[in-house]
């Protein structure tokens, strides 16, 4: 029984999801079977078709959407729960991608550096970003009035966003093993050629599409959760009522969201 009503899944989201999965499939196929092994790194280079795209999504896409959402929520003229939910969804999806960045980076590091975890600047700052995101999500889970929670989380996201560059620079100065500018040099000249370049580009598109899709799905869950929160009291009241009447159970939700016990109110 559907006790919270339905929120329609927008068609564009399904299209983006399908496109993302298809692109991902092509990336895997091209990355594992079609492209040749790298001249220097051998098969290890295949990991670079997914690691930089995941890191880009984690840092720029997820971080950017979360920051923009929080700023728009804090700005009185644009304040709406849309921005709050979007920011929260983005942080959650971003946390998954941050964790994946650390994991794929670490898998690459084992053969390349000889250790699972090197205290490399980017790996360390991504790990710290992941912990900051976990802090935000923990704050998000604290029960509170939606407006209070939204404002609190927006401020937290803003503070995290301010901290990320400082964390990045400090860890960067601390130690650096990570190579810089492999694919694009400062003049934006592509250093990867042929099928490898296309696979690399496709990887970026695939992970970006998957990010948009996950963001949309997570946003929808957020809307549904809020609706559950609103109706929880009414649902439990209706259930108590229905316990009293013989053989009755809840039959559904009326247009206004009120539950109508079978056989009428007690």
């Amino acid at each position, binding site marked *: 029984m559907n006790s919270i009503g339905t929120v329609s899944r927008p068609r564009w989201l399904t299209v983006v999801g399908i496109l993302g999965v298809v692109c991902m499939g092509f990336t895997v196929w091209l990355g594992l079977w079609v492209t040749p092994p790298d001249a220097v790194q051998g098969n290890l280079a295949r990991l670079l078709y997914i690691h930089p795209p995941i890191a880009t999504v984690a840092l720029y896409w997820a971080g950017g959407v979360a920051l923009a959402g929080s700023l728009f929520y*804090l700005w009185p003229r644009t304040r709406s729960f849309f921005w709050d939910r979007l920011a929260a969804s983005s942080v959650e999806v971003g946390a998954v991608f941050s964790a994946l960045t650390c994991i794929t980076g670490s898998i690459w590091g084992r053969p390349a550096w000889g250790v699972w975890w090197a205290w490399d600047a980017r790996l360390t700052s991504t790990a*710290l970003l992941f*912990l*900051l995101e*976990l*802090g935000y999500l*923990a*704050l998000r889970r*604290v029960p*509170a009035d939606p407006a*209070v929670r939204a*404002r*609190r989380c927006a*401020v*937290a996201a*803003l*503070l*995290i966003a*301010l*901290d990320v560059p*400082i*964390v990045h*620079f*400090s*860890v960067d*100065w*601390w130690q650096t093993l990570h190579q810089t500018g492999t694919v694009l040099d400062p003049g934006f000249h592509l250093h990867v050629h042929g099928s490898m370049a296309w696979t690399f580009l496709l990887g970026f598109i695939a992970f970006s599409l998957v990010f948009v899709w996950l963001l949309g799905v997570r946003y929808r869950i957020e809307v549904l959760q809020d609706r559950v929160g609103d109706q929880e009291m009414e649902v439990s009241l209706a259930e108590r009522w229905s316990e009293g009447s013989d053989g009755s159970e809840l039959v559904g939700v009326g247009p206004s969201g009120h539950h109508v016990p079978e056989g009428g109110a007690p």
Partner: protein
Amino acid sequence: MWREAALVAGKDLRIEARSRVGLWQVVPFAVLVLILVAFAIGPDNASLRHAAPGIFWIAVLFSTVLTIQRSVAIESGEGTRDGLRLSGIDPAGIFLGKAAAVGLQLLVLQIVLWAGVTFLFNVRVHVFWLAIVTSLLATVGLACAGVLYGALSAGLRVRDTLLPLLVLPVLAPVLLAGSKAWQAALDGSSSSGAEWLRILIPFAVIYLVIGIVLYGPLQEAA
């Protein structure tokens, strides 16, 4: 705003002076951290000397969390926060006052820890100005960021477990830069240490400014 900040700071410090929580709980805790980390590292003098700046700043960071929790707890009594909000004091003034009170306590704590590190790990600071400037800048950053996150977690039942998770990753740059600058101050290489002030200065300035701007909205949300 400054007069109000002084009022709030005076109030917090007076409460601390009378309750002596900082003196009898936070300071011994910080010294305990020094000793426990030394146990973990082992009695080798060379490695302890090498680790001394890091241990010092770890102790400062953990104590910062306790001091912030204490600063929030002062305001957690029945209706106290509402009272403060209704008193008409500029939120920026409250922020600055609370940060000043926390900062002053942290400075006293660092003096004790400095003595502790010198005594226990047999290290000597060679570049005094660097150690002092590092401590001052780090204290401003720690106090401002700490009070902000304290306000964020104020009024929550899970405050005590949530605050360390929120604030410690944020303070990581201070730990890094502070340790490196202190290492340089111990080694006597002032130029390499001064580099690290370039992290501490923006950290302190950013959190000071953000605190002044955002403390009002945060108070409303708490």
